[in-house]
């Protein structure tokens, strides 16, 4: 008994040791945030108060030129320079891929201990292009630019050419708790979720204040470590977005115009699906269907993958299994015939993490490719040509490329510390 009591007395100290880490470096940031915020008056509790200190201006509506027009005038546009809607790598004249669908495979970018690395997975060469507390790089849809986060610990968004040259910080004011971010299909802006669960749009060309697209959403649209997952812009023109919002205080899957107007809940509480939590909405490449995951109230840690039509009809489970595995991070292939996801089974002996699971959307057939990783995968995503999946197991961080058809795995000899972004180039 004395030993038990001694153990219990030691427990606070043990917990202190286990939880210890560097001294918090975000206090000033936090106080800057609270200093700019009002306290709620005593009489309002418990009602909710929504801060609205950013003037919301609707984003200028843009029409994407038709692909045929791009093809016809592509060469001329390449000579125009800075006023063209899509930034170009200086001095080059080349075709650009469409914003969605199949494309050619370019370079791959990732972050590793504060550095942005751009690599050629075939040649197995790599180059560091940024070193300032950089994280989570993401190529623009046309492959000409690269955006990443700079965390110092405030967060800024940096946009540069694909080779890292000419970086521009596009956040006029550093942010706190930025989570999800994605390029708009036309490459003119970047959409992010912030710590206040807003969806904000930034101009990708210059520092500016953001436009509030959604004032009350969910910042966890997609995993912050895997940039390939969750895409909120609806193909082919990106005029609509899918996101996680709130309906009657509960999470819902929403579809709205790209400026946030005309929002409608297509998966909401009280509907056909009983759920506690939603994650990772992602449009199919043809813009007809949204994949997402949901956890039931009874099993909040168990997520399953679902598909739903853009209008909210046709809700169905993706690849149900009698052993009831958990599904994570569904990613559409570039042509939309398959979805790659992470799957694991809870067993009495522990967690059985499976290799990357590929589901044929039409037939529901399931197969696995590549090796097992004990902690799952740090990041994975389809190659732009749809033939491979690039991924980095959490255990090794080694960048691997698996041929989806044959299952052959290529070890690149490179290691990655964060989500992988594969550059799309013209085919």
């Amino acid at each position, binding site marked *: 008994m004395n030993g038990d009591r001694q153990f219990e007395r030691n427990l606070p100290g*043990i917990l202190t040791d286990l939880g210890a880490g560097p001294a918090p470096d975000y206090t000033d940031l936090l106080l800057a945030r609270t200093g700019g915020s009002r306290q*709620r008056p005593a009489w309002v509790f418990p009602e909710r108060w929504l801060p609205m200190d950013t003037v919301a201006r609707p984003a200028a509506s843009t029409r994407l030129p038709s692909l045929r027009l791009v093809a016809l005038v592509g060469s001329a546009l390449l000579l125009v320079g800075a006023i063209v809607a899509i930034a170009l790598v200086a001095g080059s004249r080349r075709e650009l891929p469409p914003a969605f669908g199949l494309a050619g495979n370019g370079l791959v970018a990732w972050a590793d201990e504060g550095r942005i690395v751009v690599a050629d997975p075939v040649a197995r060469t790599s180059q560091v292009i940024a070193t300032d507390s950089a994280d989570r790089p993401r190529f623009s849809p046309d492959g000409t630019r690269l955006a990443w986060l700079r965390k110092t610990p405030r967060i800024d968004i940096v946009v540069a050419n694909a080779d890292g040259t000419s970086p521009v910080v596009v956040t006029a004011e550093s942010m706190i708790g930025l989570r999800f971010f994605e390029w708009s299909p036309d490459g003119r802006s970047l959409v992010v979720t912030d710590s206040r669960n807003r969806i904000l749009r930034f101009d990708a060309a210059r520092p500016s204040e953001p436009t509030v697209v959604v004032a009350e959403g969910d910042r966890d649209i997609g995993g912050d470590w895997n940039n390939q997952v969750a895409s909120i812009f609806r193909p082919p023109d990106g005029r609509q977005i899918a996101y996680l919002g709130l309906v009657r205080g509960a999470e819902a899957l929403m579809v709205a115009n790209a400026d946030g107007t005309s929002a409608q809940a297509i998966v909401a509480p009280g509907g056909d699906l009983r759920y506690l939590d939603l994650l990772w909405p992602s449009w199919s490449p043809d813009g007809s269907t949204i994949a997402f995951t949901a956890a039931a109230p009874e099993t909040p840690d168990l997520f399953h993958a679902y598909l739903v039509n853009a209008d909210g009809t046709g809700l169905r489970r993706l690849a149900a299994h009698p052993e009831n595995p958990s599904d994570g991070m569904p990613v559409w292939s570039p042509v939309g015939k398959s979805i790659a996801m992470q799957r694991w089974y809870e067993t009495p002996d522990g967690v059985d993490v499976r290799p990357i699971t590929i589901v044929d959307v039409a037939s529901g057939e399931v197969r696995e490719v590549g090796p097992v990783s004990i902690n799952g995968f740090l990041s994975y995503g389809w190659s732009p040509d749809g033939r491979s999946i690039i991924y980095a197991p959490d255990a090794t961080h080694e960048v691997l490329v698996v041929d989806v058809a044959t299952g052959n795995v290529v070890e690149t000899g490179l290691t990655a510390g964060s989500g992988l972004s594969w550059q799309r180039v013209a085919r």
Partner: protein
Amino acid sequence: MDQRQLVEQARGGDHDAFASLVHGSVARLDTAARLILRDAELARDAVQDGLFRAWRDLRSLRDPDRFDAWLHRLVVNACLDVARRRRRRPIEIHVAEMPSRPAADHADWLVQREAVAAVLRRLDDRGRAIVVMHYYLGMPLTEVAAVLGIPAGTVKSRLHRALGEMRAGFAADQAAVAAPLPEGTVA
């Protein structure tokens, strides 16, 4: 100026007073959040969320002497909110730095520490929150139960089970450490 006075001033809108309160508590809250969430970045988010709510809702606190307990609740709720939204990976392995301890009880301390770490890894977020709230933040069981919205008896039984597992792990490892090496074995 004591904490009560700081709280009263902060409640009246004095941001400098609130800043003093933050500086005095953030390290402890950060550790608690790390223990619950097992992720430094998520812990940072949760602590910031909790402290932001504390500033915003400070006028709802009737008794300034309850500030610490109230703040703990806000941060723990923020942690559980973050945990509910995050679904990172199937398994997480957290490697913490080894502490420096006096040599005399170093071996026992390490064994106990590993036993605790092993149990924390197996617990879910709410289970870790229970252990952290009671043993690290010093919250009484009734308060832990109130934060989680569960009966105090449930909290007690979960704590009892977690503690039992820790003790069992410690005892097993201690026995392994104490067992003599077979003859001829090189240590």
